[in-house]
């Protein structure tokens, strides 16, 4: 038994931290947040150059084959700096979908391009308000064409390829759609966190290639969301950690009534509670990382548990970071709001707490029944 990351993973973390400190300072995030670009192509290219986009992609598809523990480490660090890049959509969702459901030919066609940073891809699941569920999918796939309205699609305005979830004659299906082809109309969506691109995409008989066997059903989507939830939980833990560090540093440096505000119990206990939430989330994320790496039977429960913890931790950390900063905390110029925006975005991107809490209990019920 060993409940810590491997030495390799720790080295990777240090390397990632050094790299991101240089390549992704807050001004890189603000550049996207303030609308000057839909993402940071420089950072994206540099990440591809580091081999991160293929960290968990097997070597035979030009990936680094480092496995999911490595990917979790990267996710945490990217979450910590709020990296404004299409990593989650391309890597956690699209690449994972192709790996899980694609034919060998599809893997060989798309994965190497993803790894090299040449192909931004995403998953088009949501169709407006609602939690992830089979009955929520109304997009139709027939005769190699997909029709329907998907929103929000993460990185939907910059991705070239989408894995589209749609209903076909046999039930729920996945299909690959070239987003630059005719029959695809995209509109950028204003988001609570504008540092991450999202779009509304109208598919009107857009050409689509089936991904995987027909009639795989909702189970494939569910598994995909579980896996993405683990990786997102690491991004959230990274963001929570960064928010806590920011608040703690400020509480030591800011004085009121002749003493550091961090010497007042109202601030101390608030930050202690944030620390507790963050550590619980981190521990649950570690366990989920193991389950993901080992493809363990515990994965669904571990993923949902990690997601529930991490969503809570990041939101409370980001929210209370603003509070500790007082007036400065709600200005545009301080970085507190970047974390707060991202926290809420990530809290909803794969479905809200309601969906994930329900998943936790559903898994507990299965287990107790067994």
């Amino acid at each position, binding site marked *: 038994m060993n409940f810590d990351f491997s030495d390799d993973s720790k080295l990777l973390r240090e390397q990632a931290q050094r790299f991101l400190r240089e390549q992704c300072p807050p001004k890189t995030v603000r550049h996207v947040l303030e609308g000057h670009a839909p993402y940071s192509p420089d950072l994206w290219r540099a990440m591809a150059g580091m081999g991160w986009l293929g960290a968990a992609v097997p070597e035979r598809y030009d990936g680094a084959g480092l496995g999911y523990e490595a990917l979790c480490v990267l996710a945490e660090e990217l979450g910590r700096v709020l990296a404004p890049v299409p990593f989650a959509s391309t890597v956690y969702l699209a690449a994972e979908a192709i790996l899980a459901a694609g034919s060998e030919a599809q893997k060989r066609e798309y994965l190497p391009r993803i790894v090299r940073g040449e192909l931004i891809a995403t998953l088009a*699941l*949501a169709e*407006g*308000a*609602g*939690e*992830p*569920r089979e*009955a929520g999918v109304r997009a139709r796939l027939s005769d190699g064409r997909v029709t329907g309205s998907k*929103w*929000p699609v993460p990185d939907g305005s910059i991705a070239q390829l989408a894995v589209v979830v749609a209903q076909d004659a046999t039930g729920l299906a996945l299909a690959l759609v070239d987003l630059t082809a005719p029959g695809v109309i995209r509109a950028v*969506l*204003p*988001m*609570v*966190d504008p540092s991450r691109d*999202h779009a*509304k995409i109208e598919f009107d008989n857009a050409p689509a290639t089936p991904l995987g066997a027909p009639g795989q059903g909702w189970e494939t989507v569910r598994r995909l969301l579980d896996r993405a939830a683990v990786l997102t939980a690491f991004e959230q833990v990274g963001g929570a950690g960064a928010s806590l560090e920011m608040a703690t540093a*400020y509480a030591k*440096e*800011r*004085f*009121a*009534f*002749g*003493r*550091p505000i961090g010497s*007042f119990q*109202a*601030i101390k206990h608030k930050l202690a509670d944030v620390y507790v939430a963050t550590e619980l989330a981190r521990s649950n994320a570690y366990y989920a990382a193991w389950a993901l790496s080992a493809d363990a039977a515990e994965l669904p429960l571990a993923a949902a548990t990690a997601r529930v913890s991490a969503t809570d931790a990041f*939101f409370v950390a980001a*929210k209370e970071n*603003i*509070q500790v900063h*007082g*007036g*400065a*905390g*709600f*200005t*545009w*110029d301080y970085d*507190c*709001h970047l974390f*707060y*925006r991202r926290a*809420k*975005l990530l*809290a*909803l*991107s*794969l*479905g*809200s*707490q*309601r*969906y994930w809490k329900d998943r936790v209990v559903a898994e507990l019920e299965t287990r107790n029944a067994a």
Partner: protein
Amino acid sequence: MDFDDTPEEAAFRAEARAFLGSHATRKQRSSGALRYGDTDAAEVERAKAWQAKKADAGFAGITWQKAWGGRGGTQMQQIIWNQEEAEYEVPHNVFLIGLGMCIPTMIAYAGAEQLQRYVRPALRGEEIWCQLFSEPAAGSDVAGLRTRAEKRGDEWVINGQKIWTSGAHYSDYGLLLTRSDPGVQKHAGLTAFFIDMRAPGVEVRPIHQMSGASNFNEVFFTDLRVPDSQRLGTPGQGWKVAITTLMNERLAVGEIRRPDLQDLIELARSVELDGRPAIADPSVRGRIADWHAKSQGLTYTRLRILTALSRGTTPGPENSIAKVVNAAKLQDIASFGMDLLGMAGGVMDPELVPMHAMFQDALLSSPSHRIAGGTDEILRNIIAERVLGLPGDVRVDKDVAFNQLPSGSR
């Protein structure tokens, strides 16, 4: 206990309704996108026109003496007016701080001639006042301010910076708190003035908030010259003057905060969870009931306080309750409403998202409510100390000259 009007109250209410009915438009709920935006020049003009109309009809300063242009009415009439006015589309009230805090301080400390000059124009909305207390290094700890006032002959020369000043950009006058003597204990070295906001040496810069709005300003003073006749209280008495101002902080009618409970109920009826309206879900019902109980509790607490006031008791810190509860509630409701939308909750497009993305907007504006005008933490201190009588915290800044205090790097 009686929640119905007396005949006199009913008569006044009818009068108020008649006036409002013929001079303003009744509100439609959710009649358009709700943005937490800036108050622009046109809005200020509309506000001034409305205030003048109210003053002419006797609905401005309802409880003020007639000598100051008020109605000489009762607290209960003020309550009734507020209830009725809230039902109409009227301009943003840019006079709250001036009439609620600055002018009462003037009345307490300024000379008769000055009052003759300033009170009526303020009440009629011809001149707007702002309050200049907070500074970058003096937020919760207002007495830690550093803006220097130095006496030069018959004038004072002011240098320094204020922050979080609501309405500085459209204000004509300001109530200013300065440090006139850094060599004495922090509360003892302060002096108060009122100043002309258009004077040379005053520069106003809007603060860009995370929500995108700019409700507050920074105000910079560079060699601003203020005649000694505009001093309020004696030199060194500034803290006492400031307390007067802060104690006059009125029972905030405040802007109506949206989304409110009714908005949440509307949302919960319109969105579905697992194929059923969200409002049918026990977890949603539980939250709605909690917030309803809080909202109603605040409403009736306010009425209890007003009843006490109308009998002549002085306002206590009980009103801190409303701010502590409302600020957190607004943020919680915003976040909860977004959660009800599931994967689309993060979208801010008012055309796409229910209720004109009101919940998303509030997520971004609500953090400021937990801070501006007294942080949650300071308000809890106030409740604990002034209502419950618990002892104050240990003070390390009481027996030391201001310029000897440690100050940190932020």
